[in-house]
C-alpha cells in the first residue's frame, strides 16, 4: 500500500475561493492518502522533505499552482534531499488555476473541482513507477564531420576545443570547399583563403591528436545509435604521397592529358595530375583517376612517375576502407550552384559569354584563369558592359522555388569589384528585389553610388545575340519605368542559386541507416527542397535523427558568416549530446524516461515504426518493434499511436492517464468533459487565460497535460467515453505548412492525431456514440484570449448532443479496451 501525502497550498488565491479545511477533510477520505497538510506556498518544500525522510509518506501530491511553475522545482529539490524517491512520485495538482480560478464565481463547483484534481493526481502518483534521476550511457567521445568546408572545419575546431576527437571527411582532394573558390568575402572584401588559413592554424591540423582530416574520402555508411554510431569510411587513393610531394609541378608539365578544371568551373584546363589550386591544403598534387591514361591502361604512360624527384607518385595505391565509432555526426555537405543549362531562355551553354556567378567569382579571383583580371572568356578583352541577372532560377516554381539568400550580396560584391578594377565598364543589374538583408543594406547602398553600376528592377526573360555585332542583348521589363527595356552587353552573368550538395550528388551514406534510411529521414521532404530537415526556428541544428546535426548550406542557403555561426551551434549540440547530463530537455541520451514495449500486448502492426518522427524503432529477430532509447525524444507519439497500448514511457503511459480518468466521479445528470492539452502550448495558454480572469464552463471536469497532442491514445478516448465521460477535447498546436515547417516540435503530432480521430469515427458509431464527442482543436500559446471560448463552444455542442448513452453503464468495471480492435 503506497502512502500518499497531500500538501494543500494555502496561498490567498486558493483560500479566497476554496474552503481548504473542508477540502482537507474530503481529501483524507481518498484511498491511499496517509497525510494531509497545509503549506504556505507551493515552494515551501521543507516539511515535505521531512515527512519523506521520516518515511511517513512515499508519494507526494502538492495541490497548488500549475505544474508549469512548480513541478520541476519540487522534483529537483525533493529528489536532491531524498535520493531514493522517484521524480515521478511527486506531482502537482493545479487547484489554483483549474479549480480556484477556473470557477472563481462558483465556489461550490470550485470546491468539487479541487477535490477532483487532487483525486486524479493521487491516483496518478500511486501508479507512477520508480525511475532514477538519470542513467549512465556509454558515449564515444568522437564526432564525425562530413565535409571540410568552412562550416565543417569550424565545427571541427569547436569539437576539438571541447576535448572531443573530430574526424573530418572531405570528398575533394583539398579542404575549404566552396569558400576557397571565391574571390572575396562580402562585406569585408577580404580574401576567403585567409579564413581557411586562420581555421587551419587554429586546428593545428597536422599535429593535433584530436583532429583527423581525410581528404579524397567519403562516408559509405552510418548506422547505430546516437552516442555510438558506426561509420564506414573509404579513403580513395590520391596516388601521390602528400608528405613526399614538393608540389614542384614537373609531373603536371609532362602529363599529356588535359581536362576541364572543375575548380574554375570549366573556365580553364588542368592535367590529369594536378595541384587542385595554388593554396591547396594538403599542398600536394593529386591524380584524377578518370583522366589518367596509366590508370586506365597500365603501361600506356607513367611519365609523371619517371619525372618525380622524390618518388611521391604511386599509381598502384589502393583505396582504404575502415570503420569507426562516433558519438555524433555533423553534416556539413554544403552546396552546389544550380545547373544553369536548365535556364534555356537565358542562353547559358548557347552563348559562351553567358556565365554563372560562380564562374565570375573565378574570373575575379587572383588564382583564377585570368589572374583576377576581368576578361570576357570569348573575346579576350575587358568587357564594355556587363549584365547581371538576379534570380536566375530562384523564386521560380519551375526551377528553385526559394530565395537563395546570398546572390544579391554576391552580385553587389562582384559589381563593386569590377567597378573598382574597370571603371569604364558599365554594370547593369536586373533584379526582382534586392535582398541584401541586415547590414548588407549599407553594402547595397554603397554599390548604388558607383557611377558605373546601374540597378534595374525587372526579371530578365530573354538573352539573345545580335547577329551583326555579336553582342548579347538582355530583355526585361523595367517595372519602375513601366517600359520594356533591353541592354547590350559583352558578358552576361547569371546569379544562379544554391542547391544542397546532397541533392546534386547523393552520397553513399544517404541510403544507409537503421530502420528508415537517411534519405527518407533527412532529405526526401519536398517542402525543404532536399535541404536537411529540421525545426527551422526552435532547434535548427537538429535533424530528425537524434545525434545527427547539420550546419552550413546543407541546412538552407546562407552566407559564409551564417555558415560559421551554424557550425559553432552544431558543434555545441554535438558535444552536448556526448557530454551532457539529463538536466535539460536536450540531453535525450541520459533521460531515464525510456520507452518500453510490452511484447505480450504487441500485435506487430508496425504503427509505432510508421508514426515515430525520429526513427526510434527497428525490429528484433522475432519481428517485434525494438525501440532504441537513445534515438527517442520522449514525445510519446508512439504511446499515442499503439492500437494495443503496448508502449509506455515512465512519465506518460496508459496507467497514468487512465488512473486519472477513472478517478473521476461519473455523474448521471450532467455532462462531463475531459480536455487533453499539449503541455507546451495549449496547457500554458489555458493557464494564462485563467490567470487573466477567464472562467471555464462547469462541465469541464479535468484538464490533462500531455507531452504532445499526438501522444493521446485512441484507446484512452474510447475507454473514457465508455466510462461515461460525455466529451473529449484535444488541444494541440497548429498543423499545416503555412511556414517552412509545422509548429509541432515533434514534427506532426497534431496531423497524426487528426488522422487517428478520423479513423475513430467508425468505432464510435459502432459504440452508438456520436463521433462529434471527440474533437481536436488547434490552440497555440498565443491563443489564450480564445481558448476558453473554444472550450465553451465545445461544451455547448456536447450539451446539444445530450448525455453520453454510456453513462447508464458507468462504473461497469471496464478495464482498458472496450473489446474493439481498430
Amino acid at each position, binding site marked *: 500500500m503506497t502512502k500518499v501525502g497531500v500538501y494543500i497550498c494555502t496561498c490567498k488565491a486558493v483560500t479566497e475561493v476554496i474552503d481548504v479545511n473542508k477540502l482537507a477533510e474530503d481529501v483524507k477520505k481518498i484511498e491511499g492518502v496517509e497525510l494531509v497538510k497545509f503549506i504556505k506556498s507551493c515552494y515551501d518544500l521543507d516539511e515535505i522533505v521531512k515527512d519523506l525522510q521520516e518515511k511517513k509518506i512515499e508519494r507526494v501530491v502538492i495541490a497548488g499552482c500549475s505544474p508549469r511553475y512548480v513541478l520541476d522545482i519540487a522534483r529537483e529539490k525533493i529528489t536532491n534531499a531524498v535520493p531514493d524517491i522517484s521524480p515521478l512520485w511527486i506531482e502537482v495538482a493545479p487547484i489554483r488555476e483549474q479549480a480556484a480560478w477556473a470557477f472563481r464565481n462558483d465556489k461550490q463547483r470550485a470546491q468539487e473541482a479541487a477535490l477532483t484534481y487532487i483525486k486524479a493526481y493521487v491516483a496518478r502518483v500511486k501508479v507512477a513507477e520508480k525511475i532514477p534521476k538519470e542513467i549512465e550511457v556509454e558515449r564515444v567521445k568522437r564526432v564525425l564531420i562530413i565535409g571540410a568546408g568552412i562550416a565543417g572545419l569550424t565545427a571541427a575546431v569547436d569539437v576539438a576545443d571541447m576535448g572531443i576527437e573530430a574526424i573530418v571527411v572531405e570528398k575533394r582532394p583539398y579542404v575549404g570547399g566552396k569558400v576557397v573558390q571565391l574571390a572575396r568575402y562580402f562585406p569585408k572584401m577580404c580574401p576567403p583563403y585567409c579564413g581557411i588559413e586562420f581555421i587551419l592554424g587554429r586546428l593545428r591540423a597536422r599535429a593535433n591528436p584530436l583532429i583527423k582530416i581525410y581528404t579524397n574520402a567519403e562516408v559509405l555508411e552510418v548506422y547505430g545509435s546516437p552516442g555510438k554510431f558506426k561509420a564506414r569510411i573509404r579513403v580513395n587513393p590520391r596516388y601521390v604521397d602528400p608528405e613526399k610531394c614538393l608540389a614542384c609541378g614537373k609531373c603536371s608539365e609532362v602529363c599529356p592529358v588535359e581536362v576541364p578544371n572543375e575548380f574554375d568551373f570549366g573556365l580553364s584546363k588542368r592535367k590529369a595530375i594536378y595541384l587542385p589550386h595554388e593554396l591547396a591544403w594538403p599542398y600536394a598534387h593529386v591524380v584524377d583517376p578518370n583522366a589518367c591514361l596509366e590508370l586506365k591502361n597500365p603501361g600506356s604512360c607513367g611519365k609523371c612517375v619517371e619525372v618525380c624527384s622524390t618518388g611521391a607518385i604511386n599509381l598502384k595505391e589502393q583505396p582504404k576502407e575502415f570503420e569507426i565509432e562516433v558519438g555524433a555526426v555533423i553534416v556539413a555537405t554544403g552546396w552546389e550552384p544550380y545547373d544553369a543549362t536548365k535556364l534555356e531562355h537565358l542562353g547559358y551553354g548557347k552563348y559562351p559569354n553567358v556565365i554563372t556567378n560562380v564562374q565570375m567569382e573565378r574570373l575575379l579571383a587572383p588564382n583564377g584563369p585570368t589572374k583576377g583580371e576581368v576578361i570576357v572568356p570569348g573575346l579576350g578583352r575587358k568587357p564594355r558592359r556587363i549584365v547581371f541577372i538576379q534570380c536566375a532560377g530562384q523564386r521560380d516554381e519551375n526551377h528553385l522555388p526559394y530565395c537563395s539568400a546570398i546572390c544579391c550580396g554576391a552580385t553587389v560584391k562582384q559589381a563593386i569589384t569590377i567597378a573598382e578594377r574597370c571603371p569604364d565598364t*558599365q554594370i547593369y543589374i536586373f533584379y526582382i528585389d534586392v535582398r541584401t538583408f541586415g547590414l548588407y543594406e549599407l553594402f547595397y547602398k554603397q554599390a*548604388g*553610388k558607383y557611377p558605373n553600376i*546601374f540597378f*534595374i528592377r525587372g526579371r530578365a526573360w530573354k538573352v539573345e545575340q545580335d547577329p551583326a555585332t555579336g553582342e548579347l542583348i538582355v530583355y526585361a521589363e523595367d517595372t519602375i*519605368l513601366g*517600359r*520594356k527595356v*533591353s*541592354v547590350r552587353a559583352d558578358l552576361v552573368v547569371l546569379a544562379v542559386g544554391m542547391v544542397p550538395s546532397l541533392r546534386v550528388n547523393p552520397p553513399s551514406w544517404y541510403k544507409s541507416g537503421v530502420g528508415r534510411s537517411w534519405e527518407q529521414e533527412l532529405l526526401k521532404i519536398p517542402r525543404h527542397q532536399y535541404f536537411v530537415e529540421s525545426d527551422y526556428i526552435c532547434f535548427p541544428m537538429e535533424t530528425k535523427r537524434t545525434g545527427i546535426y547539420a550546419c552550413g548550406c546543407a541546412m538552407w542557403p546562407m552566407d559564409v558568416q551564417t555558415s560559421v555561426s551554424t557550425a559553432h551551434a552544431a558543434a555545441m549540440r554535438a558535444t552536448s549530446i556526448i557530454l551532457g547530463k539529463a538536466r535539460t530537455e536536450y540531453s535525450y541520451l541520459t533521460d531515464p524516461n525510456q520507452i518500453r514495449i510490452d511484447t505480450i500486448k504487441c500485435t506487430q502492426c508496425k504503427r509505432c515504426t510508421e508514426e515515430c518522427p525520429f526513427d526510434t524503432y527497428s525490429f528484433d529477430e522475432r519481428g517485434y518493434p525494438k525501440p532504441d532509447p537513445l534515438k527517442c525524444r520522449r514525445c510519446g507519439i508512439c504511446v499515442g499511436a499503439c492500437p494495443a497500448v503496448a508502449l509506455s514511457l515512465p512519465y506518460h503511459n496508459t496507467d497514468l492517464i487512465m488512473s486519472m480518468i477513472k478517478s473521476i466521479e461519473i455523474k448521471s445528470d450532467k455532462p462531463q468533459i475531459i480536455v487533453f492539452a499539449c503541455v507546451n502550448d495549449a496547457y500554458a495558454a489555458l493557464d494564462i487565460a485563467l490567470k487573466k480572469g477567464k472562467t471555464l464552463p462547469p462541465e469541464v471536469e479535468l484538464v490533462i497535460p500531455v507531452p504532445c497532442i499526438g501522444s493521446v491514445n485512441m484507446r484512452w478516448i474510447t475507454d473514457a467515453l465508455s466510462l461515461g465521460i460525455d466529451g473529449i477535447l484535444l488541444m494541440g498546436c497548429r498543423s499545416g505548412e503555412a511556414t517552412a515547417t509545422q509548429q509541432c516540435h515533434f514534427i506532426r503530432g497534431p496531423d497524426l492525431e487528426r488522422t487517428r480521430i478520423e479513423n475513430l469515427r467508425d468505432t464510435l458509431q459502432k459504440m452508438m456514440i456520436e463521433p462529434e464527442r471527440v474533437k481536436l482543436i488547434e490552440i497555440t500559446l498565443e491563443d489564450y484570449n480564445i481558448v476558453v471560448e473554444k472550450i465553451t463552444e465545445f461544451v455547448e455542442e456536447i450539451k446539444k448532443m445530450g448525455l453520453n448513452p454510456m453513462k447508464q453503464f458507468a462504473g461497469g468495471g471496464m478495464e482498458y479496451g472496450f473489446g474493439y480492435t481498430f
Partner: protein
Amino acid sequence: MTTEAGILDLSKSFDEELYNAFIKRYGVDFKACMQCATCVSVCPLSDIVPGMPRLDMLLAGLGLFDEIAKRLSPWICDQCMECSRHCPRKANPAKVLAALREIMTAKYDPTGITRRFIIGRAKAKTSKESGK
C-alpha cells in the same frame, strides 16, 4: 532611342557625355536612390507631373537624358525641398531636379555658352567631333 517593338535600348539611349558631366558636377549621392517614392508622396507638384521627382532620379541614374527632355519636372520644380528633407537615403531629389534644369539648359542652349560652363570645353569639343 527606341528600337523595334517599343523596347527602350538602355545601352543605346545612355548619354555618356551628359551622364559623366552630371556625375562630375553633382556627385554620385543621388544614385543611392532606391525608388521608394517617398519623394513623389511628399511633392506638391507630383499630381501635375506623375512620378516627379522619382522618375527623374531613375532616368538621370540610368543616363537617359533624352527621356528627361520629354518631362516637365525639371522646369516646374519649386525647390520647396520637401523631397530632400524626407528622402530616406539622403539622395537629395530637389538638387537633382535643379541639376537637371542646368543640364537640360546646357543641352538645348543654341548659343552653346551654357554648355561650356556646365559640361566643359573639352567635352564640348569631343562631342562636336563625334557629330553630336
